[in-house]
C-alpha cells in the first residue's frame, strides 16, 4: 500500500507579492536556527552568542556605525554582482575588481592628490578607482560580447591575477605604492587631501550616503530608462532584441563595464576611507565574493541590496567582536553568511512552486 498522501510541487502561475520579502526573511531566520544548532552542538550558548552579535553589530552606537561603515563597500560589491545579473551575466570577479579599484584609487591619491584640493581629490580617487575596476573587466566583457566566451570563468580567474598585481605593488622594494623606509611591506598613505574624515567619532565615512544614493539611482535606471528597458529585453529574449534592432553586444559591454566599475568604486571608498593606502589586508576580506551573496539575498533588487548589504555587514562586525570578547570562533559570521545563501537559494522553490499534500484517490470505482 502506498501512503494515502503524496507531496506535490505545483508551479505557481503568479508569485504572490508578500513572498518576495517573506522568503529572504525566512532564509535569514532559518540560517540563524541552523547556526544556533551548530553553536549548541559545539558547546556555545546560541542565545548568548546571538544577543551579543545583535548588540555588537546593530544595537550599540559603536556597532551600528561600524556596520554602516563596512556596508559601504559591501553594497558596492552587491550592486556589482546584481547589475551584471540584470542581463543574466555572472560577474564572479567583483573581488578582483575591488583590488583594482583600490590600486587605481591609491594611484590617484598618491599621484594627483597632493596637487588637488580635497573636494576634487576625493571624487578623483573614487572615479579613477571605478575606471580601474571597469578596466579589469574589459577583456572578459569584450570576449563575452564578441565571442560568447563565458564571463564566469574569465572574471573569476582574473581575480587571482589581480591579487598578484596588488601583492606585487605592495611587496616590490622600490614600488611606487610601497611605504619607504619601513621594513615591513605596506602601502604608502595617500595625500591628506584625498582622505575623508570619519563622521564624528565613528569609523563610518560619508561615502556610505553616496553609495546608498547610487543604489537608488541604479534602481531608477533599470526601471525607468531606455537603458534598463534594453537590458530587460536582452536578458529575457535575445531574439526579440535582435528583432527590434537592439544592439546586444554593445549593451553587454556597457553592463559589464558598469558592473566592474561599481566594484572598483567600492575598492576606492577604502582608499578615501578606512585604509587610506594600498593594503594587502584586503586580500583576506572577501568583500567581492560577499557581494554575490548580498545580491542573491536581495534577489538583485538594487534597493533591497542596501538592506542586505547592511545585514551582512552587521553579521561580520558582530562576528568579529564576538571573537574578541567571548572567544566564539570568528567563523560563525562566515558560516551564517553561507547558510543564508543556501537557504535563500533553496527558498526560490517556494516562490516558484506551491507545495501541498494531496490525497490519493481511487480512479476506478
Amino acid at each position, binding site marked *: 500500500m502506498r501512503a494515502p498522501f503524496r507531496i506535490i510541487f*505545483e508551479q505557481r502561475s503568479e508569485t504572490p507579492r508578500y513572498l518576495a520579502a517573506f522568503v529572504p526573511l525566512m532564509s535569514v531566520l532559518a540560517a540563524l536556527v541552523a547556526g544556533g544548532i551548530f553553536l549548541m552542538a559545539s558547546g556555545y550558548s546560541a542565545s548568548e552568542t546571538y544577543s551579543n552579535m545583535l548588540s555588537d553589530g546593530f544595537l550599540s552606537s559603536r556597532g551600528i556605525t561600524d556596520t554602516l561603515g563596512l556596508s559601504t563597500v559591501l553594497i558596492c560589491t552587491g550592486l556589482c554582482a546584481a547589475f551584471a545579473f540584470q542581463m543574466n551575466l555572472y560577474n564572479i570577479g567583483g573581488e578582483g575588481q575591488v583590488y583594482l579599484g583600490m590600486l587605481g584609487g591609491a594611484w590617484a591619491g598618491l599621484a594627483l592628490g597632493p596637487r588637488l584640493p580635497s573636494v576634487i581629490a576625493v571624487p578623483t580617487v573614487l572615479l579613477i578607482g571605478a575606471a580601474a575596476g571597469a578596466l579589469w573587466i574589459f577583456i572578459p566583457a569584450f570576449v563575452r560580447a564578441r565571442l560568447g566566451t563565458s564571463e564566469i570563468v574569465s572574471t573569476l580567474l582574473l581575480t587571482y591575477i589581480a591579487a598578484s598585481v596588488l601583492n606585487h605593488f605592495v611587496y616590490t622594494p622600490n614600488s611606487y605604492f610601497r611605504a619607504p623606509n619601513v621594513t615591513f611591506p605596506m602601502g604608502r598613505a595617500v595625500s591628506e587631501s584625498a582622505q575623508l574624515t570619519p563622521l564624528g567619532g565613528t569609523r563610518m565615512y560619508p561615502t556610505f550616503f553616496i553609495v546608498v544614493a547610487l543604489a537608488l539611482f541604479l534602481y531608477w535606471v533599470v526601471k525607468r530608462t*531606455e537603458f534598463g528597458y534594453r537590458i530587460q529585453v536582452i536578458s529575457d529574449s535575445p531574439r*526579440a532584441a535582435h528583432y527590434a*534592432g537592439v544592439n546586444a553586444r554593445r549593451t553587454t559591454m556597457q553592463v559589464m563595464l558598469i558592473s566592474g566599475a561599481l566594484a572598483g568604486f567600492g575598492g576606492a571608498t577604502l582608499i578615501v576611507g578606512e585604509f587610506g593606502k594600498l593594503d594587502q589586508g584586503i586580500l583576506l576580506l572577501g568583500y567581492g565574493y560577499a557581494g554575490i551573496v548580498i545580491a542573491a539575498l536581495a534577489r538583485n533588487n538594487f534597493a533591497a541590496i542596501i538592506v542586505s548589504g547592511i545585514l551582512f555587514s552587521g553579521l561580520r562586525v558582530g562576528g568579529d567582536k564576538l571573537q574578541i570578547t567571548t572567544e566564539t570562533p570568528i567563523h560563525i559570521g562566515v558560516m551564517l553568511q553561507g547558510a543564508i545563501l543556501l537557504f535563500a537559494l533553496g527558498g526560490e522553490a517556494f516562490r516558484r512552486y506551491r507545495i501541498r499534500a494531496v490525497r490519493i484517490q481511487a480512479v476506478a470505482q
Partner: protein
Amino acid sequence: MTNASHEVVKGPHHSGDAAPIALSAHSITKRFPGVLANDSVDFDVRAGEVHTLLGENGAGKSTLAAMLCGLYQPDSGYMLRNGQPISLSSPRAGLQHGIAMVHQHFRLVERFTVAENVVLGSRDLSFTLKRKNIDDKVAAVAESYGLPIDPQAVVGELSVGQRQRVEIVKALYQGAEILLLDEPTAVLVPAEVEKLFENVHAMTAAGKSIVFISHKLGEVVEISDRVTVLRGGRVTGHVSGRGSTDTKELARLMVGRDINLSTQRASHATGHEVLQIRELSLASEGVDILSNISFNVHEGEMVGIAGVAGNGQRELADTIAGLISPTSGTISIGGAMTTDRGPIAARELGLAYVPEDRLGMGLVPSMSILDNLLLTRDRRIVVDRASVRPEANRLIEQFEIKANNADHIARKLSGGNAQKVLLARELSGGRTVTKLLVVCSPTRGLDVGAIETVRRLLDDARSAGQAILLISEDLDEIMSLADRILVLYRGAIVHETPGESAQLATVGAAMAGLKTEGAA
C-alpha cells in the same frame, strides 16, 4: 473549409453499432490551478472507428487525451477498457492496456534509424541488438498496416510525414490497440494528409481505434466516424456519421457562435509598388537558403508565400525585415534601398513585421503589453510609459485583447491574444506609418474565433492600402486571402498564380517540389 479535392480512399466501415466499446471515460474532471480543464467529460471509442475530439485551443481536448493515455491522472471520474475499470498511472501503464499517443511534436532520435527508434524503450530487447531481427520485425509491423517504411533509414533524413509514420509504427509495434493522434495534420502538407488518412483507414480496417484530436473542421468531417465537441472543458455536442455534418454546425458547437471564414480578396485595384525584391539570394555555410528571388508587393495587395516549413520562408521574412543580410540581391521599401541597413532602417521606411515566433521574438514574454508596444518604437532616454498608456488602452479595446489592463504580462496571454498584441503594435505603426506588413503564420495555433479576427484585421489593413506579404504554411489561409500566390520550394519561387484562380492541387504539387505546367 472542406476541400473537395481530397480524394481519400475510404477503408471498410467497421464502426457499426455492433462494434464493442474499446475504451470509455466517465465523468472525468481535471483541474489545474485556476482552470477547470475537464468538467465531467464522457467519452468513448469503439474498436475500428475514428472518434474525433474537436475543440479550440484550451477547450480541454489535449488534457482529456493525456488522461486517456496515462500522462495525467483525473481528479475524479473513471475509465473502462473493454468494460473493465482501469487506472493509468503513467503512459507505460497506458501502453500495457494498448493505449498509445502520437504527439504533435515527435519524440524521435534523429541520429537513429527508423527501426532503432521504433524499438527504443521496449523492454524485450536483448543486451546486444540483433539488427537484422529488429529490422525485419519493424518492417513486418509496418507492412501489415500498409505503412511502408524503410527500417534502416536514418530518421533525421526523413520528411515530417514519414517521421509521423515512424511514430505511428512505433505505437503499433508496442502493441497499441487505441491510438491517440494529437493534431496530426498540423505539420503536414496536403499530400501527406491524404497519405495519413489512408493509413488511418488501414488501421481502423484492422480493428484499431483512433482518437483524432483536431481543431480543423474540414478534415474532421472527412475522417471521423463520430465527433465529440469540447468547449471550455465541457462536452458541447456529440455528432455521429461521416460526412453528414456540416462544418458550420460544428463551428457553432466549438466556438458558441457563428463563424465566418469566407474568402476575402482585394476589393479595389492595387497601387504603387511598395516592396521590391530583386535577385535575392542567401547562403549560409555553403548551403543555398534563398536563390534568386524577385517579386513585388503593391499598395493594397496581399501576396501569399506558400510552402512547407523549412523552405526558406523564415529567412526570407528576416531578410526583408533587415535582420539578416542577403548574400546578393536588393530589397527596397517604398523605393528606398534597405539592403544591409538593419531592422531599424527598414522600420523607418514603413516596415512592420509579425514573425512566426510570437513569444520570444515578436514579444518579450516577461514584459507587460505596454512595454511590448514600446519594443519597436523610438524610446527616449527616460521611458515615458505614462504617455503611451492611453494608446495601449485604446489598442486593447480596438483589437479586442482579453487582458486586465496594459500591465498584463505577455507570457500570461493566450496564443490568440498574444498574436493580437503583436498585430496591434505592428499595424498601428511605430516609428512611421506602416506601409508594408510582413506576417508569418499569423493564425497558427489559434482557435477559430481568433483566426476570424486576425484574418479580418489583415483584410482591413489591405483595404487601408497597406502592402501585405503573408507567409504561411496554412494553404487554406493563403488560398482564401491572398491576391497573388507564390510557392517557395528549396529557397526558390517555383510557382506563381493569382489567388482567385489558384488550384489547390497545383499549388500543393508545387509545394512538394513536383513540376507543374503552371510553374514560373
